[in-house]
């Protein structure tokens, strides 16, 4: 005995040709004996009645589904085939081309089929775009900075409801399944999964791991404020969940500035519940530097620590004045450098000062020991990031050269996706000037992996040819600079 399914869907008009296609697809389901999906016009109703379907007062405007099949299970299968056919028809409609060029979408939510939105619009516009991404089912990386804290919280709460990830705001670096997003180094696949509240901090660790032959699974950026008291590790907690279940990840590393005690407690408790080792690379006074943290990761996975590379000759360098000047494009490595330097030098003026009383406007001349972070929010309003556009930093470098107090200059050069295609060549003339005019030592921490498009070796070579001293460890670079300041001094 066959089973019969008859259904009227009123107001669901479809043209007859489309419905013939649907009928054919449904009729092909094994076990289906008859299937007619058609509008209830007299002609169609007669046809259905001839096939023995009993119809109760159909209207020509009803979409009628009439199926006869061997059993109920087959009817269920046929109905899902029908639903699938309507969906595929609608998908085809969405993808319809022809009739002139199709303009690109104007908002993130109108991009169909993506699972991640990379948003780098000016900060004021980032919130609306990111919310749209989340509402359309996409995780988000917000490269933009200058996004309000309440907006960050709203985005992260909404994303959590949808089981989506928010990286950022002000997330400069991420690596998802080997794909570098924002400023990211080319990495080999490997066992280290990174959660980073700091883009350049993550880049530094990734680069050093690469030089030790170790790859990474993912690097999930969470934004510099994620571990703040306000944001309460909203993204970090989700990232822990994701890396905990990710098969490729064997060890999880959290890179961040020290967080508020209640946030730190939350994070440590979450970490304890994971069956994988978790290494905390916390930056700041009293914490190990990024190079030390990387060495701890290597110990955790049982890889021998290499000797960190350097290029150039330390020997002839002498400080040309009393003070150290740091001009950084990466905020976290600038911070790391200041922490190391302050321990020996005391006061360090900066636009991202370690202590409030050391605050210095980045647009006025340097004062004693000064470090400037050119990637800071306040310096990128209406301007590209210094890793992309080195103009501002080179200008400042020339002013330091002209300052008789400037004794040693320390710079970072960050390679990888998204960064300047040849930073060494851009910096070389100013470095040469420093040497030729005042014999100021220029020490560079070169953050890059062996596979980066700019060529790590080539960049190092260009920099030492210009007269710089280059090392892959920022901490080592600072220590070299400190030894010069210590032994040199004003003449």
């Amino acid at each position: 005995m066959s089973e019969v399914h008859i259904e009227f869907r009123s107001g669901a008009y479809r043209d007859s040709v489309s419905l013939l296609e649907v009928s054919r697809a449904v009729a092909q389901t094994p076990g289906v004996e008859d299937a007619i999906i058609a509008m209830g016009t007299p002609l169609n109703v007669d046809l259905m009645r001839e096939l023995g379907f009993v119809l109760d007062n159909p209207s020509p405007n009803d979409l009628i589904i009439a199926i006869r099949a061997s059993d109920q299970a087959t009817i269920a299968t046929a109905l899902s085939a029908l639903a699938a056919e309507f969906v595929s028809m609608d998908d085809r409609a969405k993808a319809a081309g022809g009739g002139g060029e199709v303009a690109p979408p104007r908002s993130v939510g109108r991009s169909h089929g993506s699972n991640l939105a990379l948003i780098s619009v000016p900060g004021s516009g980032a919130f609306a775009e990111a919310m749209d991404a989340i509402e359309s089912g996409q995780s988000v990386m917000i490269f933009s900075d200058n996004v309000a804290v309440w907006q960050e919280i709203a985005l992260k709460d909404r994303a959590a409801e949808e089981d989506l990830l928010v990286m950022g705001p002000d997330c400069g670096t991420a690596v998802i399944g080997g794909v570098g997003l924002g400023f990211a180094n080319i990495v080999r696949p490997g066992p280290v999964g990174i959660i980073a509240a700091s883009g350049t901090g993550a880049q530094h660790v990734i680069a050093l791991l690469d030089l030790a032959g170790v790859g990474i699974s993912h690097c999930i950026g969470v934004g510099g404020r994620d571990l703040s008291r306000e944001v309460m590790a909203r993204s970090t907690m989700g990232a822990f969940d994701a890396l905990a279940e990710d098969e490729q990840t064997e060890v999880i590393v959290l890179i961040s500035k020290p967080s508020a005690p209640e946030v730190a407690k939350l994070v440590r408790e979450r970490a304890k519940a994971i069956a994988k080792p978790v290494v905390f690379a916390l930056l700041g006074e009293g914490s190990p530097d990024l190079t030390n943290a990387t060495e701890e990761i290597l110990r955790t996975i049982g890889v021998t620590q290499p000797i960190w590379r350097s290029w150039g000759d330390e020997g002839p360098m002498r400080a040309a004045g009393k003070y150290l000047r740091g001009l950084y494009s990466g905020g976290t490595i600038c911070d790391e450098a200041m922490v190391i330097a302050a321990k020996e030098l005391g006061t360090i003026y900066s636009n991202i000062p370690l202590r409030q009383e050391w605050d210095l406007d980045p647009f006025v001349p340097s004062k004693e020991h000064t470090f400037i972070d050119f990637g800071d929010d306040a310096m990128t309003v209406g301007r590209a990031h210094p890793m992309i556009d080195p103009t501002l930093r080179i200008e400042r470098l020339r002013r330091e050269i002209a300052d008789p107090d400037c004794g040693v200059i320390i710079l970072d050069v960050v390679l990888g996706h998204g960064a300047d295609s040849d930073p060494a060549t851009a910096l070389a003339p100013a470095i040469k000037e420093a040497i030729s005019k005042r014999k100021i030592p220029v020490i560079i921490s070169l953050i890059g992996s062996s596979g980066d498009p700019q060529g790590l070796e080539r960049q190092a070579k260009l920099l030492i040819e210009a007269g710089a001293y280059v090392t892959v460890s920022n901490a080592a670079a600072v220590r070299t600079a400190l030894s010069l300041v210590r032994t040199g001094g004003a003449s």
Partner: protein
Amino acid sequence: MSKFHGLLQNDNLKVTTAGVPLLADSLANQQVPLTRIDWRPAVPGSQTSLDRVMADGRRSEANSIALARMLAAGAQLVDVRQAKDALGLDSRTFLHAGPPITWERASGPMRGALLGGAIFEGIADNPEGAEKILSSGGVAWEPCHHRDAVGPMAGVVTPSMWMFELLDPSTGNRSWCSLNEGLGKVLRYGAYSDEVIDRLRWMTKVLGPLLKIAVERRSASAAGPVDIHAILAQMIQMGDEGHNRNRAGTLMLIRDLLPEMIESGAATSDLATATRFIGGNDHFFLNLVMPACKLQTMAARDIPGSSVVTVMARNGTDFGIQVSGTGRTWYTGPAQTPVGLFLGSYSEADANPDIGDSAITETAGVGGFSMAAAPAIVRFIGGTVPDALAATRRMYEITVGENVNFGIPVLEFRGAPTGIDVTRVIRTGILPQINTGMAGRLAGVGQVGAGLVNPPMECFEGAIAGLAEAAPQVG
């Protein structure tokens, strides 16, 4: 599914980029499937309000509900009645198109239609007398929308006029619209000469009662009431867009009503005149599309948090919109002058700013929004068929969803772009595309052309501010 919907799984990444091209280029170099957004900053001055509305946790679901209700709404032609009965208009109350307007601020065609209405109702004998009465408060008028009615162009409805009455079975809502007078010198375009008044009298005496009998007979028959929604769905597939082109819809209406009219027992001469009148006016069905669209958008109103537009209407001076989340508040701006083709020797200088409730069609996703369904319409701006497709595709950028009931053949039956989202208009700067007729600037002239027009951005700036005020406070 693993965490974050499998985001971390191998080779699963598909990225959308908005912003710095360099970052997108870097993904392209890594062979990542990529969609680049053509992003622009939001409309100046609206960012703060926009962010508050985007943060409103009710918005997304409220808009989904609005869309679902719009898609579920139907429209049956259930009656034809005089406005005094259908809408309870007393002898000294008229209705008009668009947001509220005073005599002082009323445009030429609006004044002309009100004058004609007063003469037609016997309130005055001549235009001079009518003007005296109208300018001194002798007649009250209010927007059609305030009574869930809609009127094309000036949209003037007087108590004696016959109205189509439509019912949405999904909500029980009703909407009304007057009978279409044809093209050229007609009241809705502000003409009030004897020929106009005579036609209105014939419509009242002959056409209205005849249609009423036909509609009643049809409703009582086995077939039930004429399903205007179904005709609308079919006409979209027959080259009509339901605003400036209603040819197939008009013919289908005649198909449904003619047998009933013939069997009504009416005089053959009246029947012939009536059918000739309907058949000779390709826009006859517009006055049924409009209330059908009104029912669709009415179904979506009053949903807290929803940023979906439920009314777009013009009175010839102001363009006004209403939004689901802010109830019946009008957000207005100056009506723009359409761009298009002119009849005879008329030119842009003769054209009045945008007028009429007919933009309810675009509010419901047809008209200019479904322009791809009616490529012939692009001739109004001397455009090309790809322009028509581009116009419809552009409207998907500012709408919350698609109406599969209104499938556009040339777009593989993609559903009409439906539910204008104020946030998307503000974010993209894309304004709704409206197809429209053009009235003469001076009272009494009538139609001078047809073309395309947009609402002023001020309407949406006002609406986003209103939605922001109504949103829960955060940040």
